[in-house]
């Protein structure tokens, strides 16, 4: 008698893969919009990023200028679109830097022996004592302000967080039942790492990266806002915010719209990151 005939209607599969929700669809659409803004900004931006029109300075949002204009009469909406590439590039690069360093540290701690686990744990503890922007500010004090330094600085300051999560993830997989089962089967450590540990750690790392981009953009633009990252005439979201700061009482749109792009980007990446997690089932 076959066990499959005894009980064949298990519906876990159907439950684990629900239809994408409205939020996920919207987030996806927004990411597509961002992609277009990066690849072909001219397609959706009515003006050039630096098209000055002094006569149109400080126009509030209107049909001609959806997000209004700045002190030189440049169209904020167009500048936001043109700035997407720089802002995203900074965010993605910073995330890549942070994730690579985190991966390196995490892998040493997570795949090495107990001594390495301990050592990486201590290193992480020290790095955590430079919370938030502090490490980034330290890097800037050393190498001077600018978009490149700011990107590296943000990458560095996110690394310890990634390292800790990745290390924990790898440790968890290492002590899992299926890794023990593979050892009992007589598989070599390198085969176990290749076939089980790395592939299973990959998906959570991908999610981390997705969630991280939004945060990296927020941090990098905070540095720009403080005048330590990308500098004002550049159409970068943080720099635009910084420029608008002076006119906050008279031209709120100069600050609100670039900021809104940052918020929406962060929300979209978070929603997508979560959607990936829940699609994977979230159960091990």
């Amino acid at each position, binding site marked *: 008698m076959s*066990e499959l005939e005894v009980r064949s209607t298990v519906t876990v*599969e159907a439950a684990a893969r629900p239809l994408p929700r409205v939020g996920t669809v919207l987030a996806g659409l927004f990411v597509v919009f961002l992609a277009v803004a990066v690849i072909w900004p001219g397609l959706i931006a009515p003006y050039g990023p630096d098209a000055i029109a002094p006569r149109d300075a400080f126009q509030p949002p209107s049909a001609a200028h959806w997000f209004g204009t700045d002190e030189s009469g440049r169209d904020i909406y167009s500048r936001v679109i043109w700035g997407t590439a720089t802002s995203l590039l900074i965010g993605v690069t910073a995330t890549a830097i942070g994730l690579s360093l985190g991966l390196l540290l995490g892998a040493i701690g997570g795949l090495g022996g107990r001594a390495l686990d301990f050592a990486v744990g201590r290193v992480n503890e020290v790095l955590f004592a430079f919370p938030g922007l502090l490490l980034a500010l330290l890097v800037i004090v050393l190498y001077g302000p600018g978009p490149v330094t700011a990107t590296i600085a943000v990458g560095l300051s996110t690394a310890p967080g990634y390292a800790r999560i990745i290390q924990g993830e790898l440790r968890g997989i290492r002590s899992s039942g299926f890794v023990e*089962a593979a050892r*009992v089967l*007589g598989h070599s450590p390198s085969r176990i790492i290749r076939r089980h540990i790395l592939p299973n750690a990959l998906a959570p790392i991908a999610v981390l990266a997705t969630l991280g981009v939004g945060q990296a953009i927020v941090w990098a633009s905070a540095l720009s806002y403080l005048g330590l990252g990308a500098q004002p005439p550049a159409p970068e979201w943080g720099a635009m915010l910084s420029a608008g700061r002076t006119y906050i009482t008279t031209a709120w749109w100069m600050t609100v719209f670039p900021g809104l792009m940052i918020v929406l980007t962060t929300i979209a990446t978070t929603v997508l990151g979560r959607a990936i997690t829940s699609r994977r089932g979230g159960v091990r």
Partner: protein
Amino acid sequence: MTDVAAPRDPVLDVRGLEVSFGTGRVRRAVVQGLDLRIAAGQCVAIVGESGSGKSVTARSLLGLAGADAAVRADRLDVGGTGMLRAGEREWRRLRGVGVGLVLQDALVSLDPLRTIGREIGDALRLHRRMPAAAARARVLELLELVGMPDPAGAIDRRSGELSGGMRQRALIASAIALDPPLLIADEPTTALDVGVQARVLALLAEARDRGTGILLISHDLAVVSALADRIIVLDDGLVVEEGPTTEVITSPRHPTTRALVAAVPTEVPRGHPLTLVDRSNALVSRPVTASAPREIVLEGRALTKTFTTRGTPTLAVDDVSFSLERGRTLGLVGESGSGKTTVARLMLAIAAPDSGEVLLGGSAWSSLPERERRPLRPRIGAIYQDALGSFDPRWTVERILRDALGPAATGTEVVDLLEQVRLAPDAAARHPLTLSGGQRQRVSIARALAEAPEILVCDEPVSALDTTVQARVLDLLDELQRERGLSLLFISHDLGVVRHMSDTVAVMRHGRIVEHGDAESVFTDPQHEYTRSLIADAPRLRSLG
């Protein structure tokens, strides 16, 4: 064991209970047309496999079936109150007062962050608005009633700080705090050690004798038979059999009931199947005794293993020696925390002993460097309690088996393996997550067989399974042993299972083997007091025991 002749008011009277889940057109009925009547001082049991609708029934009687459940009935009197058209308010007034609930393991059924005093006092606080001092006095009384040693000391402790038996008492005390006329016990003994299990059943029996009506829910007929006056057998939401306990057990009519009766391993001799289907060829069993001394395939010599948690060392395995003979089964039995699993890990050389040695086929095993041991590993396979956790979550059954078979594996080899563990070929494409517990354990056996081992280490392989599913897995292991001459190290906390499976038995307690010998003689004439208490506490079908 009063058969319901007394004219007492029923504490539970349910007619035509129907529970379904889902929304709109896609509704799935999980309980259909259930009639249930329990008088004061009576115990009625609902028995069935998981998924048969038992637990949903219990929750429906508390108004806790969930927001997406639709509960309908012709009559629904719980604890003497008609609840047919009750709202959440009425239900809340009933819960704890008219009906109490006992779930399984108190470690998870009592809030681990609150003291048991507060947990037990909850019902008093919610329904009686008792002053704190009076509530505390009542809680102490209740703890006394359930036989808690040192109630004054225990009242301010949390479930995690108490031993298994003590926290189970606390759980029952919390359910009977307001002396409800009806007590629902949903799998109250599952996953508990036999000793604790026996005490829980005794406590429920006491409550019954005080006049409480009890609805007992379990997948295990043996547990139920010790307590219930009547048994209802549920299959896929339908009542397939109902009657007085003795009648149901001695002359089951429905196939489901018969399967449940047959699946209780305690009294079934070694080599006889636990499933009904092939009872006919049951006598094609092994030669029961092998007089000739057999070759020893796996041996542990004076093994010791200490674990250090937060500076305090605990001796998990203490001077353990035993040997496993070719083609035979060594059963290792003991309660949770006795060191059984550590022994399994030492045998598999996944952990190294502090002192002592494990020999495989008479030559060095635990003392070899891992590099030299690896080529020998195919000789010894393993199956685990958590079969699902032992599979890479990304892999299908086919991938899992191919990985074990090696790079040259063909599709037919995979199908062959599945065949050997009685799984259909289409299981290959499935994900373990979508399989049932029994199917998963079969896949795990297939994986172990892939490398054609001589020895199979089975660590609690059936303790997460329903009895009927357990019976099928045990029968499979038995058949495979006969076909392939496998030697089994069979580890379980369940005495009945070990007795049914083993040629020789070792009883473990606190890391030591307290009794060791031929299975029949250990079970019929136990020498150690601990073994005797284990045997006395093991649930068995009442009519046979």
